[in-house]
């Protein structure tokens, strides 16, 4: 029987799952460090150069891209990476990124949002401080009036309410508005109280009688008369003409004709005092919203505030930790309604800060937050301020972790012995004393009504907490309307999830609080904050306001006991990947967002395997690698399924698996474990166009393709260094690490000594790049006979002694075909010749071996290009003298095929497998076909 030619002209990638005798020709059992990017071509992958050494970073976890810059999360900081030198510039603003965890990120409104262990952080530029996303809600708000000022906007026998909020115009001109404070009201009752005062008159001069009125009014004050009885009563607004101890007069235009009684009052000017959030800077502004006045000092104030004032926070106010605003704004200048008014969005849609989330994504202009947790919160109430229970010098302490803050009750400003930062004159609630203790005003019930005393004390305590820059929490006074007085909320300032506890100094003072506080942090029933962890919840922001997340903007997804693993935005939907399957959120606005289950059988086994590619979500699941979209999911890894079924049950599969998408190369790269390994040691590489799998060896903890240069950056897992894909589009791309050095003594035209001080050995098949001539030369042999190694090169060297050189280490690429049987596996064959055809003349050397049914491997055959055969026309100039050109070749080029005979001990068998290894630095290897010459024996021979 004549020789037959078996040619594999179309490489199909790894195929190890199926019966190896039934896979199509072009299947491979090994395809290491290659890509099947071009249809049917096996191509060496590009290499990676060290960008930032492992020693430069501390616990690097995540790579981020923002504004074309590369950032690395390390040492609980976000550091900008110089992609040329690898130098790091850490941005100010620390955060917590747990080792082994990824900081998910999303871009919106020109900012980058990063989900960290202590909440969502925000980058507004490549160099600005990293901030906590969102604006803190308005804190305490006190409204007072000055009894000596009897003019202003607050009408007599009326009331007014205020809310304040903070905002900030970020670096990208986004106006970020926080949630407003609780509404605080101030009433202005008749000066005569609930009982009308009597009046008399002499012609047009009206005299009003009220004991002690001289303390309330002065001559020329404007006084409002209302509800006067009698004939032709003197209702209206008049000017006080005279005041004596127990009466005052005013002149009316039309004299009453009888005496009677009346109410009188004066205008007031509200004075607002509100605390600044501890993180507020002069970049913040504040807005004051004033309600309409209901017309009665005892009527309920409508929550219909309109903007009356906005101003930037001043540095003095930052220092003082509070702002005082005197409301003299005329009603005519009331501006926009507060967005939380019932006529607007409603208070339920306050712009709360984003919750803690394990993942974030932008979909339909809204920022989505998955697997969330709220701020740590603790509701408390002061139930008594009786002096016997709660007295001056009593205190409470708030403890979070190793931080304990003390708040001491005082019945007056601590002028004696106070050694805090501020003097006694300017003492306020924000300044701790020398011991770090803060003070709050205890209003005992002996000085006012019980309700007022409780309210004042509770508010004062909140104020003291809010102005303590080291406090772990803020205080919000809650009681309003008919609610039980004295209630307040303590809420943590960060989303780190660390609970805080509260105690009083004695059991007696502890009884002033509800729930009952312990007197010790180590004994008794502890009163501790908690947060709401919603592992199946998705929260979302208002459209185009990624930092405004109303509490009602949430969708529970699937079972409450199954956590959200990832949320990923596609073009028309948001895919929610949960432990109980795949869900999809559709809609185009907060009011239309709804969730549906997409697939309950696909369970993602590694959160970091999730990556978006070609508008589909790729992930490692219980069914191998799948691509999911809002239309469904498709298994992609059938050809190598056995490799995945062996690892998906491993306990550390989630921590050892990471993935990245490479759109321009159409690759999904999955770094994970080999079946017989317990740590990541292989990267599965899937080309979405050719649907071919190969493997790479450079496993990673995280990786990213930077859009600004379209290069792959890799954070290694074995060595936590940052490496950068070589992508100069020339031969230098096909090498791993490189080292700088120089030439030394030139021995012969083909050999020389080198001077490199590097941590690795110089080996055969390393290549030397000579930048001055742009040529590269391969080390063929090394001789150490004379002590100093002499390196012999493939081509005559182009450099002279002391020239600057760069040494490149090779990438080892290997392929092994699936068994080739000539169509009949039962029949013996003689395989005689093996030919590898290249697309271009870039591979200079290969190692070829074979295996068959009787032998696992043959001896290696070293194949190399024959230079002398390429000296004619048709080959690049420069390929023979001084080294090869570094220019890449992208089309078919005259090239020697690699041709060899199958070794004698392996040439006879029922099948054959060829293994080809290329391991020469700085040269590509593009294989277009593999072919065998073979002859089938007579069937008799086989049986």
């Amino acid at each position, binding site marked *: 029987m*004549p*020789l037959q030619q078996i040619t594999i002209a179309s490489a199909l990638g790894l195929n190890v799952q199926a019966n190896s005798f039934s896979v199509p020709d072009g299947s491979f059992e090994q395809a290491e460090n290659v890509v099947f990017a071009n249809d049917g071509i096996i191509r060496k992958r590009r290499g990676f150069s060290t960008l930032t050494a492992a020693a430069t970073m501390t616990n690097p976890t995540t790579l981020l891209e923002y504004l074309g810059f590369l950032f690395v999360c390390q040492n609980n900081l976000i550091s900008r990476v110089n992609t040329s030198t690898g130098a790091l510039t850490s941005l100010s603003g620390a955060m917590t990124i747990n080792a082994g965890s990824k900081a998910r990120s999303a871009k919106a409104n020109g900012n980058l949002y990063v989900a960290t262990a202590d909440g969502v952080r925000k980058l507004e530029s490549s160099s600005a401080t990293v901030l906590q996303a969102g604006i803190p809600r308005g804190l305490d708000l006190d409204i007072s009036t000055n009894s000596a000022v009897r003019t202003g906007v607050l009408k007599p026998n009326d009331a007014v309410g205020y809310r304040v909020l903070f905002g900030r115009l970020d670096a990208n001109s986004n106006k970020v508005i926080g949630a407003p404070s609780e509404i605080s009201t101030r009433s202005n009752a008749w000066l005569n109280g609930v009982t009308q005062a009597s009046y008399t008159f002499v012609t047009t001069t009206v005299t009003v009688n009220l004991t002690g009125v001289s303390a309330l009014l002065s001559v020329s004050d404007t006084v409002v008369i209302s509800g006067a009885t009698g004939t032709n009563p003197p209702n209206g607004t008049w000017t006080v003409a005279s005041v004596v101890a127990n009466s005052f007069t005013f002149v009316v235009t039309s004299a009453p004709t009888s005496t009677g009684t009346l109410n009188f009052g004066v205008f007031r000017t509200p004075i607002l005092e509100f605390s600044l959030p501890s993180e507020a800077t002069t970049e913040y502004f504040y807005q004051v919203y004033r309600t309409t006045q209901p017309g009665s000092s005892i009527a309920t104030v409508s929550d219909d505030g309109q903007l009356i004032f906005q101003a930037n926070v001043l540095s003095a106010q930052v220092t003082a930790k509070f702002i005082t605003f005197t409301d003299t704004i005329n009603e005519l200048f009331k501006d926009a309604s507060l967005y939380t008014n019932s006529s607007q969005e409603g208070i339920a849609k306050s712009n709360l800060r984003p919750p803690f989330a394990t993942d974030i994504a932008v979909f339909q202009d809204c920022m989505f937050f998955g697997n969330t947790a709220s701020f740590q919160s603790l509701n408390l109430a002061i139930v008594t301020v009786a002096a016997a229970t709660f007295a001056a010098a009593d205190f409470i302490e708030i403890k979070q972790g190793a931080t304990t803050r003390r708040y001491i009750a005082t019945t007056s400003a601590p002028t004696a012995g106070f050694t805090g930062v501020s003097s006694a004159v300017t003492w306020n609630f924000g300044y701790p004393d020398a011991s770090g203790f803060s003070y709050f005003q205890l209003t005992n019930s002996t000085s006012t009504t019980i309700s007022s005393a409780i309210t004042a004390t509770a508010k004062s305590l909140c104020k003291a907490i809010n102005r303590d820059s080291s406090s772990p929490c803020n205080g919000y006074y809650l009681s309003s309307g008919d609610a039980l007085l004295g209630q307040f909320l303590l809420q943590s300032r960060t989303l780190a999830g660390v609970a805080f506890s509260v105690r009083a100094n004695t059991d007696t003072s502890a009884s002033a609080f509800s729930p009952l506080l312990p007197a010790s942090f180590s004994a008794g029933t502890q009163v501790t904050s908690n947060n709401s962890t919603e592992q199946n919840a998705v929260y979302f922001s208002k459209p185009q306001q990624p930092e405004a997340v109303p509490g009602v903007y949430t969708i529970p997804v699937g079972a409450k006991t199954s956590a959200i693993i990832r949320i990923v935005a596609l073009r028309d939907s948001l895919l929610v990947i949960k432990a109980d399957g795949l869900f999809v959120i559709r809609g185009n606005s907060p009011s239309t967002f709804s969730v549906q289950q997409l697939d309950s059988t696909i369970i993602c086994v590694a959160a970091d395997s999730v990556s978006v590619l070609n508008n589909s979500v790729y992930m490692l699941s219980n069914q191998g690698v799948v691509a999911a979209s809002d239309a469904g999911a498709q298994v992609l890894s059938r050809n190598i399924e056995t490799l995945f079924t062996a690892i998906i049950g491993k306990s550390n599969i989630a921590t050892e698996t990471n993935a990245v998408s490479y759109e321009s190369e159409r690759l999904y790269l999955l770094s994970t474990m080999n079946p017989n390994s317990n740590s990541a040691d292989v990267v599965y590489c899937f080309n979405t166009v050719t649907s071919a799998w190969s493997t790479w060896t450079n496993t990673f903890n995280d990786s990213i393709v930077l859009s600004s240069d379209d290069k792959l950056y890799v954070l290694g897992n074995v060595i936590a260094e940052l490496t950068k894909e070589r992508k100069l589009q020339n031969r230098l791309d096909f090498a791993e690490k490189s080292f700088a050095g120089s030439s030394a003594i030139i021995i012969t035209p083909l050999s020389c000594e080198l001077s490199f001080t590097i941590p690795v050995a110089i080996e055969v098949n390393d290549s030397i790049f000579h930048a001055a001539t742009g040529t590269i030369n391969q080390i063929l042999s090394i001789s150490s006979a004379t002590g100093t190694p002499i390196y012999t090169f493939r081509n005559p060297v182009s450099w002279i002694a002391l020239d600057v050189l760069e040494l490149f280490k090779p990438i080892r690429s290997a392929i092994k075909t699936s068994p080739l049987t000539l169509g009949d596996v039962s029949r013996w064959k*003689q395989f*005689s*010749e093996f030919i590898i055809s290249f697309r271009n003349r870039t591979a200079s050397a290969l190692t*070829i071996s074979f295996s068959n049914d009787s032998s696992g491997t*043959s*001896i*290696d*055959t*070293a*194949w*190399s290009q*024959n230079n002398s055969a390429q000296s004619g026309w048709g080959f690049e100039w420069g390929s023979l003298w001084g080294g090869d050109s570094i220019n890449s070749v992208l089309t078919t080029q005259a090239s020697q095929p*690699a*041709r*060899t*005979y*199958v*070794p*004698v001990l392996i*040439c006879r068998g029922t099948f054959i497998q060829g293994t080809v290894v290329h391991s020469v630095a700085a040269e590509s290897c593009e294989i277009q076909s593999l072919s065998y*010459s073979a*002859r089938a024996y007579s069937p008799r021979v086989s049986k």
Partner: protein
Amino acid sequence: MNTTELLASIKRGIAVPANQNRFTDVDMLALADEETQTKLLPVLLSMRQEYLVRAATVPLVALQRAYPVPARAIGRTVRQVTLLQGANRFLQPYIQPEDSNRYLNVQTTGTSSGFFFEGDNIIIVPTPNSATASLEVKYEIQCSSLTDVANAAVITAINTAGNFITVSAVPSTIIVGRVCDFIQGAFGNAILEIDFTVTNISGLNIFFAALPTSIAVGDWLSPATTTPVINLPREMHQVLAQAVECRLLEGLGDFEGLQASGQKLTEKTQAMLTLLSPRQKGAQQKIVNHNGFLNRGYNRSRNRWN
């Protein structure tokens, strides 16, 4: 043609890949040896042109009847046996072993009258009773096994007084105590001298107990029974290469190629025969009647008639 050239010719002939482990160079040279022995030597010997004949002289030992056939004699055959006694040469006729008894009682001093074979020995009769003569045995020597040229050394100088030769490079295969052959470097590539033991090596100088007189600069020194050049006429080299190519194609299972190559081998062999025989082209061959009346002198015929 040396072995490097032979290998290049073989590889060129059927385009053997430059890098392969199916057939090593050693494999190919071994195949060449096989083809030499099984194809070329029979052809060469069939022409009876005395190509490979050489002589070995063995002193007779008193009362010793058996002398071994030279170790390298092809087929354990001899071409001619002659008794050398002083200046006289007595051609020893081959007698039938059955006739040997006729010579048992004839013992002259140190002489013999004929010979026959007994196993691998030449038996001379009658057995000499003294050691006064020698036996010259002419035989056709085997071609040595081909070896890489790197295993042999080219003689660059000869120092007869010092009993050493200078070589271009001393191969690792030649060490003190190694028995070597001298191979003709010029065309013909005959085995000049055999079985010389190296006594010392100093730099590029290789010493022997004594040097043969037949060697010249350009000749090869090679370990005994090996040769870096083909010990056959130049015209046979391409036939040998072709024969090896056939073996390679056969080994590869390329029967189509084998058929074509075999055809070419036949053609080359025919051409070779016309080149090699007759060895003398002009003179007429003289037929000598050894038993004729005029050729019956004492010295020439005494053995026949004893």
